């Protein structure tokens, strides 16, 4: 047996395969061009942010905020500490006082938002529906101590916020009502 150079000639089947793979490759190239063309002519999905404000989807978790009853202008919170106990990080601190009608109300409601991980557990723990996730998202501050939110800036506006649904309709969130309180 003599071992000559390997036979590198292509068989007929291999030639056919090369030709068809070239043609299918060219076809997939055309398909790719079509995909990019479609994406080029349709409107962009991004927009200029400060000029146009992003309206979050329903269920967006900004920060835990206190719902305000539009009739009384007060929060629905009675300082039961359920949220503070549910918080895995312990960033919620509540001090309460008693009114003349024996009902308790928060005199101080402090959230160290810089450490908050926006897990929603406090909202789920509240038996009175007094907490909700605000759909705001512009939180940047120059000093860390400005990230400690107090009762004054944790209250939501009574009219709530407008958020989007996936089907394109809008709905209001952060309204008083719901819960067992």
């Amino acid at each position, binding site marked *: 047996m003599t071992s000559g150079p390997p036979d590198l000639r292509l068989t007929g089947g291999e030639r056919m395969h090369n030709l068809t793979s070239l043609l299918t490759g060219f076809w997939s190239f055309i398909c790719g*061009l079509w995909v*990019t*063309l479609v*994406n*080029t002519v*349709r409107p*962009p*999905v*991004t*927009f200029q942010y400060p000029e146009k404000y992003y309206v979050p989807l329903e269920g967006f978790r900004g920060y835990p905020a206190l719902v305000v009853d539009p009739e009384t202008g007060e929060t629905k919170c009675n300082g039961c500490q359920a949220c503070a106990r549910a918080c895995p990080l312990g960033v919620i601190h509540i001090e309460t006082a008693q009114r003349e009608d024996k009902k308790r109300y928060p005199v101080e409601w402090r959230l160290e938002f810089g450490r908050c991980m926006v897990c929603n557990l406090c909202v789920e723990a509240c038996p009175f529906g007094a907490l909700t996730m605000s759909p705001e998202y512009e939180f940047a501050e120059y000093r860390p101590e400005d990230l400690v939110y107090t009762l004054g800036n944790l209250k939501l506006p009574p009219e709530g916020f407008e958020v989007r649904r996936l089907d394109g309709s809008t709905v209001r969130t952060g309204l008083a009502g719901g819960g067992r309180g």
Partner: protein
Amino acid sequence: MPADLGAFLQGVFDQVHLWASQSPFWSALFTLGWGIVKVVLVLGFIIVNVLVLVWLERKFSGRVQSRLGPMRVGRPHGWAQTIADMIKLLGKEDIVPRAADKALFVIAPVVIFTATMLVYVVVPMGPRAIVSDLNIGVLYLAAAASFTVISVLMAGWGSSSKWSLLGALRGAAMLVSYEVPMVLAVMGVVLLSGTLSTNAIVKSQSGLWYILVQPIGFLVFLAALFAELNRVPFDLAEAESELVSGFNIEYSGLRFAFFFLAEYANLLALSAIAVTLYFGGWQGPFLPPFVWFMLKTYGFIILVMWIRWTLPRVRVDQLLEFGWKVLLPAALVNLAVTGVYVLLT
């Protein structure tokens, strides 16, 4: 440009030429001055177009990816973005690596820009708007267009960096594989028109564009063009994800700006060449020739960008295999068929 203004300028030019040819000193000065005017015109043309092209590429890539692209600098649509980028680049610190071969490192950006400028000499932008209508125009083109790889090698070797050297070697391998099918594809056009002069090739396409009779040749030319331009899918010399930035990684500031400028100037030059060879150059009804030339060139550039933002980068072995096993035979078959056709008619 209105015809009477052109005639007026021609008249002024002829008068000055006549006056200057009376003495050898003024004649020499006139030749020098007219050369400088031509250089300034071409340089201005290149720089303005490059600024537009960089902006266009960023805008187009943004739209392909459903983004907006640059919007902030200059309204509307961030038109001043490239100007701001250029000013920023010019203000950057100029660094030469200590281990670099300083002479090569410094010369390389100049060489790549010179090589790009050389191509513009034979680009016909109108019936008379051509720097020099060489009778070996296409041959000159093939030589000048492949000259850029010398600079890529100089930059890669001179930087003394493994990434830039790898990029430069890839660029050289790519040139060897793609220059041959490109020239063979262009030869089909030369056979049909019977001339090597670019302006004569444009004139011979008054009836029928060569893309209609040379579709295979055009596809081969288009594929080779991407390798020549170092663009995706054949941007192996500057593959960002593998070689950081390829041959130009060690460059900064003004020298990097030269590479950047040359890249887009090359895109414009080769698109103009493609329009000249396959799309009838400056020929077209109603509009002035220069407008037709620019319209076709920008249309072709959009096509190149469209392909560039569609395809991923190929592997090195795929690149060489495609060049030698697909493009070269296709170009040869195209040349043979064209030759037989020309012989029979």
